């Protein structure tokens, strides 16, 4: 049973690790309110 599901767990854990790294990176990328609502911003 262990061998049968090992690949599944490895893939799932890898997906979660990638998601956590992506989450950290994307959170760091977010603009502050001052940047977001500046008239210089095109993402307003």
């Amino acid at each position: 049973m262990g061998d049968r599901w090992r690949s599944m767990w490895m893939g799932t854990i890898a997906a979660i690790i990638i998601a956590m790294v992506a989450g950290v990176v994307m959170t760091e990328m977010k603009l502050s309110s001052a940047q977001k609502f500046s008239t210089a911003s095109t993402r307003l």
Partner: protein
Amino acid sequence: MAAKIMRSLVRLTLVAAFLFFSIGFVQTGIPGLGLAPAQAQSAGSVPCNWSGNISDTQFWRAIRKGVTGTVSIPDRKAGQLVQSDGDELRAFRQGPMSQFGGWLLIGSLILLGLFYVGRGRIEVESGLSGKTIERFNSFERFVHWLTASSFVILALTGLNMLYGKYVIPTLIGKEAFASLTMFGKFAHDWIAWAFILGIIMMFFSWVRHNIPNMADIRWLMAGGGMFSKGVHPPARRFNAGQKIIFWVVIVGGASLSGSGLALLFPFEIEMFAGTFKIINVFGFNFPTELSSIQETQYALMWHGIMALVMIAIIIAHIYIGSVGMEGAFDAVGTGQVDINWAREHHNLWVQEMESMDEGPVSNRAPE
């Protein structure tokens, strides 16, 4: 008598004065009160020429219909005060898209249930031999599960965004549903990167085995042997059904990823105007001048449609890879499949492997 005549003259004067000033106020407005004269717009012109010959009604109607003006800040989108396409998108998402998507998913489950009742589990007809052959190595299995697990999470969190509000609040309450959906949205945004990585690795791992050939035509003509016992059309490492799944995952996954990235980075990644230009070469008439907001709205709509179609197809894939066929799960479980299973479903591949000196056929006791 003279007094009576005087009173009549005064009354007449007051009436005349009242009529005079009333007409004057109608023409120019009442000074000090700032009341606009209603009749001034009767000819379609507005005083002071601030908007030319456009009346307020015409002016606001044009804004409501999405007319775009000019602004001096860098964000040109601010020139459009009202964008009605959002209403239409919401009506589509909550109407036909949710309705037909729901029927698609429920219909898939019903069809698979009927197939199971009619055909039963597809057994290894020659029985399990105990000899196994390596079908997928550890890297291939890892890639499969990386893509599969991330897709399942994406599907569940995505379905929650589309249908959750109709069901889950009644089960766990509105506050819990709001928290669940918020965390689900974060999970959706973040785990999407694992899915994107998965389909890229899957493409490079398996594309050379998934090029269509004549054997696929024969396999499809025989219905893949799915509907009758004793029928095993020849197939190489991937049969035509698996190739269809592969290309659905690659092309559909790429489309989902592209539209998803456009939603993750709205107004920065825009893909629909360019795509429509290419499609219009084939005689279609899709709009090719899209605002940034329209681009995002098309991305949201397409993302949902593609996701629903892919979920329905992957449900069928999960069925046939688990309860629907004996021995199929081992291919992505341990990677070792029974040689009799392989000969029934992928006989050309087994011949290729056996003709190789280092053929990975092994002797393993059945579990």
